[in-house]
């Protein structure tokens, strides 16, 4: 009787074990599939966001570099102030943490960058219809 019970217990354990093992095998398989899927989905969403944000920042860069070239050499007060603002904008662009999309400062830095760009536009007397044109770049958010 005692032997019978022991046998039954053993069997029971083996069944539980099998139960766990099959579940575990399914889990492992699923985990790998899920990982692959998560990587793919994340990657695609990330790519879309990265492309838009980089396009915006790169736009500011090209814009600032061009204006710096155009104004350099002008010694008047106004040009000096404009050049200073352009340098400040380029500094912010250099510091923008595009390498780390998880950076908590990304949003904050982008706001600073957009603010500086607006200031630069105002200082350069960039016409309103032009701003309308670049609206798409300016309005990019994530």
């Amino acid at each position, binding site marked *: 009787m005692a032997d019978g019970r022991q046998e039954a217990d053993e069997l029971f354990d083996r069944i539980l074990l099998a139960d766990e093992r099959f579940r575990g095998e399914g889990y492992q398989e699923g985990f790998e599939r899920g990982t692959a899927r998560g990587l793919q989905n994340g990657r695609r969403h990330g790519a879309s966001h990265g492309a838009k944000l980089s396009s915006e920042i790169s736009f500011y860069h090209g814009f600032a570099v061009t204006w710096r070239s155009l104004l350099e050499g002008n010694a008047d007060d*106004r040009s000096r102030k404009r050049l200073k603002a352009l340098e400040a904008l380029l500094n912010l662009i250099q510091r923008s943490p595009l390498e780390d999309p998880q950076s908590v400062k990304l949003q904050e830095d982008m706001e600073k960058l957009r*603010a*500086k760009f*607006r*200031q630069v536009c*105002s*200082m350069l007397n960039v016409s309103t219809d032009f701003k309308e044109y670049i609206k798409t770049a300016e309005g990019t958010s994530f």
Partner: protein
Amino acid sequence: MKEALAEVQRISAHPDSRCWFVSWSPNGALLASCGGDKAIRIWGREGDLWVCKTVLQDGHQRTVRKVAWSPCGNYLASASFDATTCIWKKKNDDFESLTVLEGHENEVKCVAWAPSGNLLATCSRDKSVWVWEVDEDEEYECVTVLNSHTQDVKHVAWHPTKELLASASYDNNICIYKEDDDDWECQATLQGHTSTVWSLCFDAAGERMASCSDDRTVKIWKEYPSDSGQGVFLVDSDLSWKCVCTLSGYHGRTVYDVAWCQLTGALATASGDDAVRVFKEDVTASPDEPVFSLVAQVTRAHNQDVNCVSWNPKEAGLLASCSDNGEIAIWRFKEED
């Protein structure tokens, strides 16, 4: 109550429209008002009465929300829902449009001159605060765009002596800005109001600030050096502001404006419950726990929302208020001696 608010005059200033704001010139001789009729009116005293001296029209395409006098009194700035800020120059008894500041994406809600007169701040529904610099040639150039608020910015006010700027927003917060290392930075974000902060002002010394809100309260904030151990709102700043007093239970609706008299220290409020109220500070209370009590009120100061209150800077106790019904009212606050 020993104190009282006596009506001096009532003017239909912006008929069939809202009167949004009134502002006394630095010498107290002129009062500028603005409204939904896109106009700015300048009022001067003739005998015992205030009369319209001039009307500035054609400057704006939409509502003029606020007006501000330069510290020298020779310029007037107007902020409009048409997204621009106009600078007007006084010429004899008239004003001419000097320049138009563009840059905000939409409605400009407020404009304020720094005490030096060299800087001007504007704020907008576009969530940004701009600081403009004025040069000798009367040219205005934007020196910074600040995006510290997450919503519509309702009001900006300068510290009376330092180049320190405060802004109030629909995001329930107050931001304090300072020029730091050649650029302007938000130095502190003051949290405490539970709804839109509509206005704020400093006391004469600049040690305290009063703010008013849609949460029906007025809060008094005091400046503390951050190492004083008095409770700090933001680290990484050399000073901070702590709420030392909240006036609640007095206002039945939104408090739209608060004005601290630079001469007497009396605090006036404008509210959506149509009332104008005056509070006085208990001089015996600790400066860290100030006590303000209601000393005068006119419950039906106007028959619609009161949008603004303003103390005359030279004549103690002379108060102007304006309302959604287009009226301006002039009051005299009398204290028993």
